[in-house]
């Protein structure tokens, strides 16, 4: 399996999970503290941590571990989710995004990021309490499980003994594990982050002879004893990615009484048990505080008891897996291109059939054309994605900017299920961001001004999408102060864009804001007002073969309306003017 492709898939998944996490946090902040949202946040952190571990992205694992621990406490009911915690977790989500970029070598870690991480870890530690102090958990810059100590390092605190205090885990990896891009080593390393490993032993099963040995098939079987704040479900969850490809047995046990398994037939049966003596050492004899434990201590929060609390969500995830198939965009583009060629070839066949005046041939080509058109429409539909995901990201933008600006703003989204071409969705995000920021910064007035104007103190920003006449229309509307035409005209004259005696319609005056370098903002802020945005917004929209128009009324608000083609993939023809009449060129 190509590692780059696997990393790209990991990154896609991680970004999606971070988006889900952010949406869930914002929905909780909006007063919808549902168990589903809390589970979704936990699941996002858990999955990102697990996947990162498989790729050895240790800094991501280490940081996400704390987020996962906090969310585990929240969903277990031991910690109440507060507004401050939501704010912290939103920032943690951003930082995880940075850590992924850093781990993939895209951005370096500067002092700012290091300080931010320290602050976030301190914040998480404050909510987690003493039991989860960062000193007991993997540090962001340290390998969580694969460090110098490894799982076989003596346990920092020995189990208390008596009743079952740990688990005997036996996992026989299936032969196809390597072929699926999975690595048993990563799973065992990840498992070690969940508690204290007292001993571990690995051997090969049904290896056969040197001649029949296939190095790319997996023969590994591993047994270990682990203890800590974990349960059978969290151990099972650690192997969820290969649950169909491994034989997993988990048995509760007394760690202090366990020894190297004698029942395992192995060529290495004489191998001394790793760290057995350490496991049997009384707690008092264990070092009180190891300098840098390579695995989280028993005090560190165990991760991922995903099954009981999450059983519904897990079922949903499984059904979603069955419902959707992730396909590389390049492959889809290739299919679309081929279908485009097929359409052209089909049209040629029709022309030939017409010229031959063969009734049977014409019927046959007509049937083929109908089918080709159906295939074309279906293929184009594959590229269509809902704009809701793009709209959703503005919840965070509006939240953060409204706090920064000291304004209360209610974001209203409608038409989120409206579909448009994926390439358009990707390119529309930046112009939309600019429009939203402009509305927040310049459109919607300050609290005092809104009170003076007799408006509600809560400003309204609407994002609306709908289909109209074969196009998709996206509206960004605010109930702010609207465009001041006199001010725009004066500014345009000052900038030399128009002459003082120019006679312009209100719409033409409004459109002046799309001129390069134009801004009516009285003050330049770090959000907008530098006049370098609206012209770029218009250029971006025009590059998508779209149009942008304004509908503004002073004191009432502004609607910015973007009209885009439904798809960029296949165009039936161009409508051109020839003489006085229109002509259609296929």
């Amino acid at each position, binding site marked *: 399996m190509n590692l780059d492709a696997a990393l790209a898939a990991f990154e896609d998944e991680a970004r999606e999970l971070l988006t889900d996490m952010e949406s869930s946090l914002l929905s909780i902040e909006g007063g919808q503290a549902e168990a589903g949202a809390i589970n979704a946040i936990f699941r996002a952190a858990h999955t990102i941590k697990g996947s990162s571990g498989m790729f050895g992205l240790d800094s991501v694992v280490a940081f996400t571990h704390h987020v996962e621990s906090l969310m585990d406490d929240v969903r277990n009911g031991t910690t109440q989710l507060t507004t401050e915690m939501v704010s912290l977790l939103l920032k943690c989500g951003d930082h995880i995004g940075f850590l992924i970029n850093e781990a993939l070598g895209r951005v370096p870690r500067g002092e700012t990021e290091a300080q931010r991480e320290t602050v976030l870890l301190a914040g998480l530690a404050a909510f987690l309490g003493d039991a989860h102090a960062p000193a007991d958990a993997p540090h962001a810059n340290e390998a969580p499980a694969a460090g110098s*100590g490894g799982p076989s*390092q003596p346990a920092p605190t020995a189990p208390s003994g008596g009743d079952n205090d740990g688990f005997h885990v036996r996992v026989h990896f299936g032969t196809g594990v*390597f072929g699926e891009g999975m*690595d*048993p080593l*990563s799973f065992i390393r990840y498992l*070690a982050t969940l508690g204290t490993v007292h001993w571990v032993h690995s051997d090969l099963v049904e290896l056969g002879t*040197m001649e029949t*040995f296939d190095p790319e098939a997996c023969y590994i079987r591993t047994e270990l004893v682990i203890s800590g704040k974990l349960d059978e479900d969290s151990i099972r969850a650690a192997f969820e990615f290969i649950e169909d490809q491994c034989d997993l047995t988990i048995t509760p046990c007394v760690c202090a009484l366990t020894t190297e398994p004698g029942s395992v037939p192995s060529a290495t049966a004489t191998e001394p048990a790793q760290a057995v003596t350490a496991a049997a050492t009384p707690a008092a004899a264990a070092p009180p505080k190891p300098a840098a434990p390579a695995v989280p201590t028993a005090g560190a929060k165990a991760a991922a008891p995903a099954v009981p609390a999450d059983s519904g969500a897990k079922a949903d995830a499984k059904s979603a897996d069955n419902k959707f198939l992730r396909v590389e965009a390049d492959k889809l583009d290739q299919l679309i291109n081929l279908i485009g060629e097929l359409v052209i070839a089909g049209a040629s066949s029709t022309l030939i059939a017409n010229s031959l005046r063969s009734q049977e041939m014409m019927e046959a080509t007509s049937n083929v054309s109908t089918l080709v058109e159906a295939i074309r429409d279906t293929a184009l539909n594959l590229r269509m994605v809902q704009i809701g995901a793009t709209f959703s990201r503005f919840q965070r933008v509006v939240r953060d900017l409204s706090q920064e600006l000291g304004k209360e703003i209610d974001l209203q989204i409608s038409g989120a299920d409206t579909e448009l071409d994926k390439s358009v969705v990707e390119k529309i995000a930046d112009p939309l961001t600019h429009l939203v920021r402009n509305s927040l910064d310049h459109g919607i007035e300050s609290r005092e001004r809104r009170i003076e104007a007799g408006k509600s103190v809560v400003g309204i920003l609407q994002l609306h999408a709908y289909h109209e006449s074969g196009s998709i229309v996206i509206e960004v509307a605010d109930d702010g102060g609207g465009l001041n035409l006199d001010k725009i005209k004066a500014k345009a004259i000052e900038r030399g864009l128009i002459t003082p005696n120019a006679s312009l319609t209100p719409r033409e005056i409004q459109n002046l804001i799309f001129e390069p370098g134009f801004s009516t903002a009285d003050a330049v802020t770090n959000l907008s007002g530098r006049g370098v945005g609206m012209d770029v917004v218009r250029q971006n929209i025009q590059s998508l073969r779209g149009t942008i128009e304004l509908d503004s009324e002073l004191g009432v608000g502004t609607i910015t309306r973007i009209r885009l083609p439904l798809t960029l993939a296949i165009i039936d023809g161009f409508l051109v003017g020839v003489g006085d009449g229109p002509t259609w060129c296929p």
Partner: protein
Amino acid sequence: MSLELTDGRVVWTLPSEVNIYSVAELKTSMNAALVQKRDVVCQMKQVEDFDGAGLQFLMAGREFAAQQNCGFAVSKPGPDVVDALQAMGLSNMIGE
């Protein structure tokens, strides 16, 4: 990657990558090392990229050597290899 006969033992030097992408290719050299029916010292000082498939490869080498009543030891492993061996409870493969 090379094979040398030193002090009656086969010193089998592995390349920088011993992972899922290289183990199939390395199998030939493992056969060459083991066919001599001598103790094998697996020299790993050059190994930088090591994963579960590489680990299994070493375990298989030891198993096949044992089938011939020969010893098999890992020599001069780097930190990544040591970590991997420790994680899977195989530190005792490290010989000299």
